[in-house]
């Protein structure tokens, strides 16, 4: 009963701000189930890496994709660049300068449906004090109470001054870095407790 009451109050609050009946909204990023990987090319050899620690805010309502938002903060120190040597190297000033710029940040600016379960997400990516526009297609797969947002895009490391000095030559480490993301978000309890109409249905059961 307590929950129902809280749900109703919340539902009412939601009803005020969003008068239309709200469908499910995925807004709880599950970092444990998500992954953020990248592939760099060293001497034309693809080398896989990943970031272990990141967090973000995400909200996605399939009924209102244009209102979707995404914000992601990545702890650059959590990088696995393929080897211990590489992990140490990329923290240096020539690369991420992790001490001065510990976090990379992505903030979405627009989401456009591309048909089906695909969307074009545009936003601003900030790394090492440099902010660049980027956009990427995202595929959304819903499974019950959670949704998976997957996609890949190519960043130019030089755009963010990643890998300067002796590394500036792209012959050894290519400029293009492929980013592969897989973000899993669940619908929050608040969103799961549907607006009044749904709550009343529950009551009727």
């Amino acid at each position: 009963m307590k929950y129902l009451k809280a749900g109703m109050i919340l539902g009412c609050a939601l009803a005020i701000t969003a008068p239309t009946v709200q469908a499910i909204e995925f807004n709880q990023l599950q970092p444990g189930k998500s992954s953020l990987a990248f592939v760099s090319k060293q001497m034309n050899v693809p080398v896989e890496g990943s970031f272990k620690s990141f967090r973000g805010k995400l909200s996605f309502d399939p009924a209102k994709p244009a209102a979707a938002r995404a914000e992601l903060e990545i702890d650059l120190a959590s990088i696995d660049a393929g080897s211990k040597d590489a992990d140490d190297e990329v923290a240096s000033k020539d690369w991420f300068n992790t001490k001065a710029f510990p976090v990379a940040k992505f903030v979405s600016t627009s989401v456009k449906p591309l048909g089906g379960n695909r969307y074009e997400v545009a936003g601003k990516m900030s790394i090492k004090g440099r902010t660049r526009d980027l956009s990427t297609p995202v595929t959304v797969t819903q499974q019950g109470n959670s949704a998976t947002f997957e996609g890949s895009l190519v960043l130019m490391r030089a755009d963010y001054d990643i890998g300067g000095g002796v590394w500036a030559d792209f012959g050894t480490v290519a400029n293009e870095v492929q980013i592969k993301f897989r973000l899993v978000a669940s619908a929050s309890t608040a969103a799961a407790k549907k607006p009044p109409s749904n709550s009343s249905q529950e009551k009727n059961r």
Partner: protein
Amino acid sequence: MLAIGDGIPRWDMPLSIRAPHKLRVPQKIALPTRTMSPTPAPDSRSSYTRVAIGLHWLLAFAIIGSFSVGLYMVDLPLSPQKLRIYSWHKWAGVTIFLFVVLRLGWRLLHRPPELPAAMPAWQRNIAGATHILLYLLMFAVPLSGWLMSSAKGFQTVWFGVLPLPDLLEKDKELGDLLLQLHMLLNFSMAALVFLHIGAALKHHFIDRDDVLTRMIPFLRNTASGDCK
């Protein structure tokens, strides 16, 4: 030159032709032996074939070069230069492996020249074992390097163009283990190469036989006087 006591069976002869050499003197007896052998026995047995000599020296310099580069590169701090050297080392390893395949093929189809008649059996056995181990290591060293590279998560792409399949998944502990193996195999090979070079020099300067000159024919003109 190889007249006396030349009938001792040799490690590197195919079994079918480990017949006493003297039997070849009466040609009618020798003939069946020769036809039974998988490869034709050359008339002149004083030197390796040109191809065998070429492959020997090509691989000798390539292997010593790659070994030295390997020793040098492991302790370098990470830099573009280090990545380049690692790539070259891997490309060299793949190339060496292919030449070793060629070389073994050639070796199986062409009988090497006879060992000096005066060589005692224990020396022939050691020489035989050394050669077999060197061949095994010429295969094992590049293979272990390739597997290590895969286990460490770096695919080998020959000359940056032809990707070799990764036979192993990325696995840090296995990668470290394979590094140890690669080093062990390399140092074993280095020890055998020293034995091999030492023996060749001993044959040339102490025994004064043709063991070295049959692999370096141009030395023979200058050394033939001594050999008599």
